[in-house]
Structures are given as structure tokens and as C-alpha cells.
């Protein structure tokens, strides 16, 4: 399973986020250094709503922000892409990369009082395999003996630890699964929703809010957390407000302490409020990009693809449209992917209208029609782009309009349809498009496998470009076959070079994630997929 779209994060992929600049707050523990953390208080967060509180049953949409403090995972991944012990006190990976043995920590209990032991972990992993086919991790078998859980894989699969660290793979009390129906678990509530995390559910009103209270028994924080023991906050009130401007208004008027999903247009306004700070991180994953369909004319010709890449002033448009909330992208992985982003590609192409025109002439698109668009064999050079509604936003729409004008200047007719996901799905299946624009969110470089490996076309993944490149397949397979950090970085760097050289993708903008936070709130972190981190280390200064 691969996540895509700005709100999406897959269970297979890994994430790590980097701080955009030192002017902004860096995670974790930087703010905590100024002051001694204080216990107590209620944190009020305005955010999006998770549909189902049982993450394995429901879709993964919006679950991370709201649910990650309720459920614990086997291992924890820090922003530099390294793994730390959590419910697994230690683990071993066999030489052939096929067997993972996790030693489960003693003394952990779920919110309903039942023990979280190796058997409970096995039960949860088995459910993940049965219901979700383990994302797309090639899991063969899961077994438990004493305090060790052993997972056997069919083939080597390097993102496995990352998958296990994702918020969507938090463990639920097996007793609660036997006791309550799917429906009751999805609706959730105190007693029903039984994780083992630092907070437990105090109440839930669907469509309105989810209130969490501190789990006073908590003593099994991940090794990379800023502190150990209980959480600082007494309560976390998550209030669900869909409308961007209302969430921003709520923190500005002090009715809430944190707003997620801050739109670019509100940035200046928030900066002008003395009681607020703006936290910003770059979204790990694949930048907002053009996937170019190479299965048919005209984008099967690398000269046309190259002409598109140099034929518009992408970087200039970004400053004008994104209001400082995005940076120009050159590599297929955003700079926030610590494990793999290739910085050598920065500024590796620049706007060159003359070169673009020459390339198009050379490719045979030298005549123009009455409207000034290029034609070849009586056919106009029209590029039909698709984006799905959840993948686009005001800035991207505006940017695409700017591109349309820029492309028209070199004689290319660019049409972009933003359609609902179902309609987009149908057009992907019918191969009825030239360009797909979206971004993919997850810090695991193996995202590139789903987006470019030759067999990963839309029927199972997101190779919208129908890319079929032996060298690229080789690099991506290398990255998948080893958990060795240096070897993986080398493999994904090679892959990004090939993607750039053959123009399989035009990366456009590295998106950022914005939070508006009251200055009294300390210890806010970002998670590995660019989302707001757990509320475990968060505290309120008086």
C-alpha cells in the first residue's frame, strides 16, 4: 500500500522530517531546554477528524494526528531515520534480511488492564496481515514464544521497521477486539478504545470532538522521547473543525492552543499575533510533481519532457504563488527525507525558453496552428493533466494556471482537470491522461518504488508514468533488499539521478506543514510523516 495526496501516509512507507530553518522550532526537546517542563493542564487542539478509532478496520485518513497518543508501536523512528526501542526492548534482523525477532518489554498494560505481551503483539500483527494484507509488506508468518515475536518475510523488505513504527500500526487490546463489535470499536469511547499509550479516551462525540486523559500507569515511552514516565498534560481536547479559516480564528482568539492544517494565506496573519508561534516543517516524501505519461505520444519523447522542464520558470512561480510555504523542488525526494534525498540535484536545471523551443522543433513539433500552438501530423501539442480534488489546493490551482500561460508561450496547450477521486481513478485505468500532479507524503525513500518501478502501475501502485527502466528498477530493488543505511542511501541517490536524467518526473514544489501554536505550549514535535507528533512530551508553561 502506498500513500499519496497531501493528507495521506501509507503504512508501508517511512518518514522523517527535517526542520526547514533554524528560525523555526526544531523537534524534539529544543524548546524544553529553555525551561523545566511543568505537569498539568489541558491542551486544546483544533484539527481534522479520524473516521474510525480502530485504525486497522477503518481507513487511515486523519488518524495519525488524533490517535497516535492512544496507541503504542513496536519501535519508534526519529526524524533522522533511525530506530529506537519502544514496546520492543530490542530486535534482531537475520543475515538474509528475512527474519525479524522482537523482544517485548515487560510490564506493559493496555488501558483495559490486560497485559501487552508477545501474544498480544502477535495477535495485532496477524490482524494487520489478515485485514490489510500487512500493507504490502511481504509477511509470511508471525509467531510468538515467551517474550519474543518473530516475523518471517517472503522477500527482503527494507521499510519493514518503518512500517511497524507508523502511527497506524498502534496496538489494540485483543480483549477489546473480542468483546466489542467492529462498529463499537470504530465509534470508540472510554473503555472501548483500549490502546496502551500515554493518553486514553475520555469521551468521543463523532463530528465534534475526542477528549483524551492521561494514562497514569504509563511507564514505557520510546527511547527517543524527551522524557520518561507519565505524560505532562492532564487532558488533550481534540476539536474537529473542517474549515481552515475557522481553525485559524480559533487559535487567534485563544479558544484553542494548536491548529493543524494552516493554509498559506493565514501565515502573515498568524505571525502578526504576539501570543502565537508558527511551527513549520518540510513534508517528507515526493514533492508536488508532474508524473509524465511515457506510454504514448507526445511525452514518450524525452525531448518533449525536457522542453517542459526548462520551458517554464518553476522556481519564480513558487515564490509568487506559495507565499513562502514551499521551496522549489529538483529531486524526486524532498529534502526532509534524510535517508536518501539527493542534494546534488539542486538547481540542476534552469528556465530556458529558447532551449525548450529548440527541443520541441527538434522533436518534430515545429509548425503552429492559428492559435499559436504547435502541431505535428495535424495534431496539436495538447497535454491533458489530471489531479484529484483531495490532492490539490488553492495554491496548486493557481500555480497550474501560471504554468498554463508559460507553456502556451512555448506553444504547448496544457489543460488540467481537477476531478473527484473516483473519476480520476477511471481515467487512470483508461490511460486517458498525459500528466498527473500530486505529492506523496512519507519519509521512506522506498516511496520511489511504488511511483517508478516498472510493474507498479495504477492497478497496484502509482507508477502513473508507465516508467519502464532497467537501471531504475535495479536501483530501487537494491534499496529494498538491504537495511544497511549507507547502501540504501546510495541506491536511492542513484535512482533520483536516473529519474532526473530521463525526466521521468518534474518535481515542482517541496510542500511544508504548518502549525499555529500558542506560545505557552512547549515540546511540540513533528512526526516522521510531517504530521504533528505525539502529545506525550508536550507541556504548558504557566
Amino acid at each position, binding site marked *: 500500500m*502506498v500513500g499519496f495526496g497531501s493528507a495521506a501516509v501509507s503504512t508501508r512507507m517511512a518518514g522523517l522530517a527535517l526542520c526547514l530553518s533554524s528560525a523555526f522550532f526544531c523537534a524534539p526537546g529544543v524548546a524544553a531546554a529553555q525551561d523545566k517542563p511543568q505537569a498539568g493542564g489541558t491542551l486544546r487542539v483544533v484539527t481534522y477528524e479520524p473516521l474510525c478509532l480502530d485504525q486497522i478496520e477503518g481507513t487511515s485518513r486523519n488518524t495519525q494526528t488524533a490517535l497516535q497518543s492512544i496507541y503504542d508501536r513496536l519501535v519508534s523512528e526519529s526524524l533522522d531515520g533511525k530506530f529506537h526501542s519502544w514496546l520492543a526492548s530490542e530486535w534482531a534482523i537475520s543475515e538474509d534480511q528475512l527474519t525479524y525477532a522482537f523482544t517485548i518489554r515487560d510490564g506493559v498494560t493496555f488501558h483495559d488492564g490486560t497485559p501487552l505481551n508477545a501474544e498480544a503483539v502477535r495477535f495485532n500483527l496477524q490482524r494487520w496481515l489478515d485485514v490489510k494484507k500487512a500493507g504490502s509488506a511481504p509477511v509470511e508468518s508471525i509467531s510468538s514464544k515467551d517474550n519474543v515475536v518473530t516475523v518471517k518475510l517472503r522477500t527482503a523488505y527494507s521499510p519493514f521497521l518503518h512500517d511497524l513504527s507508523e502511527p497506524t500500526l498502534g496496538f489494540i487490546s485483543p480483549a477489546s477486539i473480542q468483546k466489542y463489535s467492529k462498529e463499537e470499536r*470504530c465509534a470508540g469511547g472510554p473503555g472501548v478504545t483500549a490502546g496502551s499509550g500515554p493518553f486514553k479516551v475520555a469521551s468521543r462525540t463523532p463530528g465534534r470532538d475526542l477528549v483524551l486523559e492521561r494514562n497514569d500507569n504509563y511507564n514505557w515511552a520510546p527511547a527517543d522521547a524527551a522524557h520518561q514516565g507519565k505524560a505532562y498534560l492532564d487532558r488533550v481536547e481534540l476539536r474537529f473543525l473542517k474549515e481552515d479559516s475557522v481553525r485559524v480564528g480559533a487559535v487567534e482568539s485563544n479558544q484553542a492552543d494548536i491548529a493543524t492544517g494552516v493554509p498559506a494565506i493565514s501565515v502573515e496573519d498568524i505571525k502578526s499575533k504576539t501570543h502565537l508561534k508558527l511551527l513549520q516543517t518540510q513534508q517528507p516524501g515526493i514533492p508536488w510533481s508532474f508524473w509524465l505519461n511515457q506510454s504514448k505520444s507526445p511525452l514518450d519523447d524525452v525531448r518533449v519532457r525536457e522542453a517542459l522542464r526548462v520551458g517554464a520558470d518553476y522556481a519564480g512561480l513558487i515564490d509568487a504563488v506559495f507565499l513562502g510555504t514551499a521551496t522549489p523542488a529538483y529531486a524526486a525526494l524532498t529534502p526532509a527525507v534524510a535517508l536518501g534525498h539527493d542534494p546534488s540535484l539542486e538547481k540542476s536545471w534552469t528556465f530556458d525558453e529558447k532551449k525548450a523551443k529548440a527541443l520541441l522543433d527538434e522533436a518534430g513539433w515545429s509548425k503552429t496552428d492559428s492559435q499559436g500552438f504547435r502541431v505535428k501530423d495535424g495534431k496539436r501539442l495538447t497535454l491533458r493533466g489530471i489531479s484529484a480534488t483531495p490532492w490539490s489546493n488553492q495554491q496548486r490551482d493557481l500555480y497550474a494556471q501560471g504554468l498554463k500561460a508559460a507553456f502556451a508561450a512555448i506553444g504547448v496547450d496544457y489543460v488540467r482537470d481537477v476531478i473527484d477521486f473516483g473519476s480520476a481513478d477511471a481515467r487512470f485505468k483508461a490511460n486517458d491522461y498525459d500528466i498527473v500532479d500530486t505529492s506523496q507524503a512519507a519519509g521512506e525513500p522506498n516511496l520511489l518504488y511504488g511511483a517508478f518501478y516498472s510493474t507498479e502501475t495504477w492497478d497496484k501502485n502509482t507508477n502513473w508514468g508507465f516508467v519502464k527502466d532497467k537501471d531504475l528498477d535495479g536501483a530501487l530493488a537494491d534499496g529494498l533488499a538491504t537495511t544497511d543505511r549507507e547502501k540504501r542511501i546510495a541506491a536511492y541517490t542513484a535512482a533520483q539521478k536516473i529519474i532526473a536524467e530521463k525526466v521521468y518526473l518534474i518535481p515542482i514544489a517541496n510542500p511544508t506543514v504548518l502549525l499555529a501554536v500558542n506560545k505557552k505550549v512547549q515540546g511540540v514535535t513533528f512526526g516522521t510523516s510531517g504530521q504533528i507528533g505525539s502529545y506525550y512530551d508536550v507541556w504548558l508553561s504557566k
Partner: protein
Amino acid sequence: MHIARELLIRIFAGAAVLWAAASLAFAILQLFPSDPVQVIYGADSSVTPELRAAIRADFGLDRPVWEQYQHFLARIVQGDLGTSYQQRRSVISIIGSELGSTLTLASLSVLLAIVMACLASLVTSGRRTWLRKALSSIELLSVSTPAFWIGILLLTFFSFKWQLFPVVADEGWRSLVLPVATLALAVFGSLSQVMREEMDLALEQPFILTARTRGLSEWAVRWRHALGHTLIPCITISTETFGGLLAGSIITEQVFGRPGLGRITLEAINNHDIPVVMGIVLLVAFVFVTLNIVADLLYRLADPRLRVSAA
């Protein structure tokens, strides 16, 4: 006797409307280009072919359309609206848990709008005063401004700026004020325009002159004699609006982050959660059918002439 027979016919006609609505909705949703499996699994992820097949079998999507239709009708008759693709909860329980909040909002808004519109027409009809001009402008403004914008404006001033009514915290009636005002304003515009028009006409009737010659005060003339004439359009518009608000207060619910049918309608349509969409279509059809019957009964109460002709 007559009423009972008429009611029976109405109920049968209503059932036919429901069946037609269900079938039409089923047909239209078959034409949807989306693959339900994608919806069930989550629109933000791609699905392996094996999992796809498993989900299709699970939800009966692998059977022929005709069979799915029969199954669908049979379930409805038994009162089972199916299970949500996304929430994995039964549609009945989803609608049940949201209905209360929407009913509260819709009935308070319509009630407030009726009271405001009655007052406005009592005070201003038949007169050419500055008050009438001012009220007409407000009506025009409320009719032509999207509820979304009214909501944001009210929030900006009454919640963000002056902090009178909360949008985040739940403080009982205080949390209800702004959403109710938003919807009521939107309904008030058209209701008030029509009612005043009707009262203007009534005030020119001979019976009003008779009443005046009997020495009744202007207020009594309006209150006792003219207002009754505005009730028929008032009933028509407000029942229709009320029905519309059940699934149609989407924007208001979204702006104020309130639970309710509008929110789940939007969510279900966006995510192509077909069972939920169907459930809501049926509910709205049912509510309109019922409201029409209720409105007919109310007409008889409001207008004695209808009782005479029916007898």
C-alpha cells in the same frame, strides 16, 4: 372519513415516491465512475488485486447488478440500510447518531426565521417607511449572501473578535446561537419577502376595510385578520426549507464543526460511501413525503375554506 381516505392515498403515494427515489439513487450510483473497493480501503491508498477481490466478495459487489438491486430493496423493506464503506458502522446507527443535532439546528432555525418574518411583515407591510426599506435591504442581502459567508462573518465578529459565543468549547445554548442565527438569516430573507407580499395583498381586501370600520386598531387588524393570510405560504416555505435543511445544512455544519447529517452527507459524497449516500437519499425522501402530508393538514387548520371544500 374523507380525511382518513385521503391520508391513506397519500401514504401509498409516499411509498411509491420512496421506491422511486431509492431506485433512481441506485441507478445513478451505478453510473459513478468510482470503484467502491477503493473507497472501502481508503481513497488515499492503492490496493493489491487479491485484497480487491476479497473486499468485492465481502460487500457483494461481485454479484450482477440486478441481484444487487433486489438485495438492496429487500434490505430496505426490512429496515436495513447497509453498512458504511468507510466507517464500518450500520447506516441506521450513523444517521441515528447525527439526526438529533441536525433536528435541533433545523427546527430552531426555521422557528426563529418564522418569528422574525412574522414580526417583519406585521410591522412593515402596507407601509412605506424607512423601517420597511431597511428590512427589505436586509432580506435582499440575506437571500443573496451564501450561508457560508454569513457564518464566517458572524464567527469573525461574535466569536473571534468579541468572544461572546464559543466555536471550540461546547457551552450548551451559547454554542447554538451562531449556527442557528446563520441558518435563520438565510431562511428569513425569502420567507419574509413572500409573507409581506401576501399581507400587502390581504390588507387591500374588503374584509380588512370592514374590520377597520368596526373600529379595530391597526395592530388588531394585522394580527387577527391579515396574518392568517400569510400562513399558507409560510407553511409551504418553512416545511420545504425544513426538509431541505436536514441534509442541506452542510455548509453551516462544516463552518461551525457541528455533528449532523449535512456533514456526513458531504463526507459520504466526497468519499463515494454509497450505502450512506443511499440512506440519506431515502431519509430525505421520507422526510419530504411526511412533511407534505403534514403541510396539507396544516393548510386545513390555517385556512377554513379548505375544510369546507373538502367536506
